[in-house]
C-alpha cells in the first residue's frame, strides 16, 4: 500500500512535467503561429499591393500613346496580358471623363464599380458580389488628364497563402511537439529510475532490516544523490538496529 502511494507520487510528478512541457509547446506554437499570420499577411498584402501598383503604373505609362491613337484594341490586348499575373483579378481603364475604355470583367462591369467614381485613384477595398474581396489600386494616365488604370487584387488569394503558411507552421510544430513529448517521457523515465531503486531499497530495509545491503550493492556504490540516499537509509537502519540492541554503531563499510 505504501509502495503504491509512492508510485502514484512519481506518476503525478510525470504528469506535472508533461503538463509543463505541453503548456510550453502550446505557448510556443500559438505565439509562433500568431507571429507567422501577422508577418505573412502583412508582407504578402504589402507585396501584392506594391506589385499591383507597379502594374497599374506600367499600364498607365504604356497606355499614353495607345490612348492618344485611340487604339482600344491594343489597349485591351495590353491589359489582357497583365491580368494573367497571379493575384490580379481585374483591370479596367477609364477615360478622363470616367468612361470605361477597356476592362476584363465577365459578364459585365460590376454595379459597384460602374456607379463608383471611375476617376478616383485612391486605394479602396471592394467586396464584389459573386466575385470576392479585392483591394483596388489605381494609377493616373498622363497625370490624370488621359484617364486612369485600376487594378484589382484578390485578397482571397492572400488569405489562402496565409492559411497555407499557417498550415505548414502547425504541421512543423506538431512534429516537434510529438518528438518533444517522447523525449520528455524518456528523460523523466531515465531520471526517475534511480529514485525507484532507492525507494525499493528503503521499502526492503523497512520490511526486513536483516536484508541489509544484500542485492543492493550497485545502488550503494553509485556516486550520485541516489547512492548517497541509499547509504543514508542503510545507516539509519543499522543505527535503529543498534539502538534497539543497545550496542555501539558499526562504521559504514563504504565510509
Amino acid at each position, binding site marked *: 500500500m505504501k509502495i503504491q502511494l509512492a508510485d502514484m507520487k512519481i506518476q503525478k510528478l510525470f504528469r506535472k512535467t508533461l503538463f509543463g512541457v505541453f503548456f510550453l509547446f502550446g505557448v510556443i506554437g500559438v505565439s509562433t503561429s500568431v507571429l507567422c499570420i501577422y508577418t505573412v499577411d502583412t508582407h504578402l498584402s504589402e507585396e501584392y499591393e506594391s506589385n499591383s501598383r507597379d502594374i497599374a503604373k506600367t499600364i498607365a505609362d504604356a497606355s499614353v500613346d495607345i490612348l492618344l491613337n*485611340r*487604339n482600344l484594341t*491594343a489597349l*485591351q*490586348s495590353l491589359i489582357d496580358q497583365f491580368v494573367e499575373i497571379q493575384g490580379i483579378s481585374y483591370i479596367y481603364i477609364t477615360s478622363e471623363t470616367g468612361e470605361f475604355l*477597356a476592362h476584363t470583367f*465577365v*459578364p459585365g462591369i460590376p454595379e459597384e464599380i460602374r456607379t463608383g467614381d471611375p476617376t478616383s485613384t485612391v486605394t479602396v477595398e471592394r467586396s464584389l458580389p459573386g466575385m470576392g474581396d479585392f483591394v483596388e489600386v489605381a494609377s493616373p494616365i498622363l497625370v490624370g488628364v488621359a484617364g486612369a488604370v485600376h487594378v484589382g487584387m484578390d485578397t482571397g488569394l492572400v488569405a489562402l497563402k496565409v492559411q497555407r503558411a499557417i498550415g505548414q507552421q502547425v504541421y512543423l510544430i506538431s512534429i516537434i511537439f510529438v518528438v518533444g513529448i517522447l523525449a520528455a517521457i524518456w528523460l523523466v523515465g531515465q531520471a526517475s529510475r534511480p529514485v525507484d531503486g532507492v525507494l525499493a531499497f528503503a521499502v526492503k530495509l523497512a520490511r526486513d532490516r536483516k536484508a541489509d545491503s544484500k542485492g543492493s550493492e550497485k545502488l550503494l556504490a553509485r556516486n550520485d544523490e541516489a547512492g548517497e540516499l541509499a547509504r543514508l537509509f542503510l545507516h539509519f537502519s543499522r543505527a535503529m538496529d543498534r539502538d534497539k540492541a543497545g550496542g555501539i554503531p558499526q562504521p559504514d563499510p563504504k565510509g
Partner: protein
Amino acid sequence: MGLCWPRPGAASSSGVTDGEIVLGMSAAFSGPSRGLGIELFRGASAYFEHVNRQGGVRGRRIVLRTYDDGYQPDPSVKNTMTLMLEDEVFSLFGYVGTPTVTRVLPMLKKFQERRIYLFFPFTGAQPQREPPYGDFAFNLRASYRQETAGLVQNFVGIGRKRIAVFYQADAYGRSGWAGVRRALKPFGERIVGEATYRRGSKFTGIMRDQVEILKAARPDAVICIGAYAACAAFLRDAVDLGLRVPIANVSFVGSENLLNLITQGRDDGKRYTELLVNSQVVPSYHDVAIPAVGQYQELMARYDPQPPRELLREDYTPFSHSFVSLEGFLNAKVMVEILDRLGDRPERSALQDAVFSIRDFDLGIGELVSFGPERRQGLQKVYYTVVDEGRFIPLDSWKDRFG
C-alpha cells in the same frame, strides 16, 4: 563570280525553292472556334490546289504549312516563331483572330529585316491596319470598324438607336465594341448596355447573366462581337428569355457554324433566327452569277479540300460552302496574283512593291481590289445577310425586316 548570282530557278529567297513557295498559316483547327480555321483553310486550299494542278505560279507549287493555335494567343506566337525561324516560310498567310494576330504583329516588327509579311488575316481589327504595325500586314477584307458602322447606320436608320453590345472579353471584342462606339457618336448616341463572355466559351455554356444585363438596358438592337459557339448560346438564351430585338453578328462569327448550332435538332429554329442579321465581307456564296462565286463553287466541288488530318483532334463536318471558305478562296486568289507579279525569282524584298502594283484588280466579285502605301486593305464593301428557309440570304430591306 557565278556563285554570287543564284542560278535561274534555284532558291532565291527563304521559303522559295525551285519547285515550291511555302506560306505559313497558324489558325484555330481545334477548340470551339475550329470551324473558322478549317473553313478558311479549305477555301484557300481549293484555289491553291487548282493553281498547283495547272503548274503552279511560274512553275512553283504553293505549299501551305499549317499549325493549330486553337484561337489562343500564346500558341499563335509560338507557331509564328516556328514558321519564321525554323520553317523559314516565304510569308505568313490566313491567320485567324484578333487576340492571336495582335500578339503576332510585334514579332513581325522585331524581325522586320527578314521582310516577312502577314497576308490577309481573318480579322477586321485595327492594329494590323494602323501604325505601328500596319506596315507588316496586308488585309483583303473590310474592317470591323466598317462592319459595325454599317450595322449601326442601318439600325439607327430604322429608328433603332438604343444599341447594346455583347462581346468577347479580349482584343477582338474590344475592337468591335470600339467600332460600335465610334459609329454611334455622329448620331449623338452611346452604347446603352454591354455584356461580355470569356474566349473559348462553348454552345453548352449559359449566357443568362449576359442576357439579363442587356435586357436591363432596354436596347433596340444588340450587336455581337464574338465567335459562333458563344454567339449561338447568347442568341438561344436571348430568345428564350424574351429579349425580342434584332441581334447582329459581324463576319468573324462564322455564320454557317452559328446557324448549324442554333437550329440543329430544333423544330422551332425559325424562332431563333427571325431577328438575326449578320454582316459579311464577301458576297453571298449562293449567287453563282458572281464569277468568283461560280469558280469557288466549282473548285470546292472538284477538289473537296479537307483540313490537315494531323491537326484535327475533334470531329468536324465541313460545309460544302460557307462565307468563311469563300473568304479563304478569295484570299488565295489575290495571293496567287501577288506571287505571280514577283516574277521568276520571288524575293521577299519585292513583296511590298508587288502588292502595291495591284490597282483595280478584278477579283470577280464586282468590287475591284486596290492596294497602295496608304491603302493596306484591298476590299471595302460590307454585305448584310438574314436567315431564310434555313440559309443565309442577302438582306433586301432593313425597314421591312426589322423596322
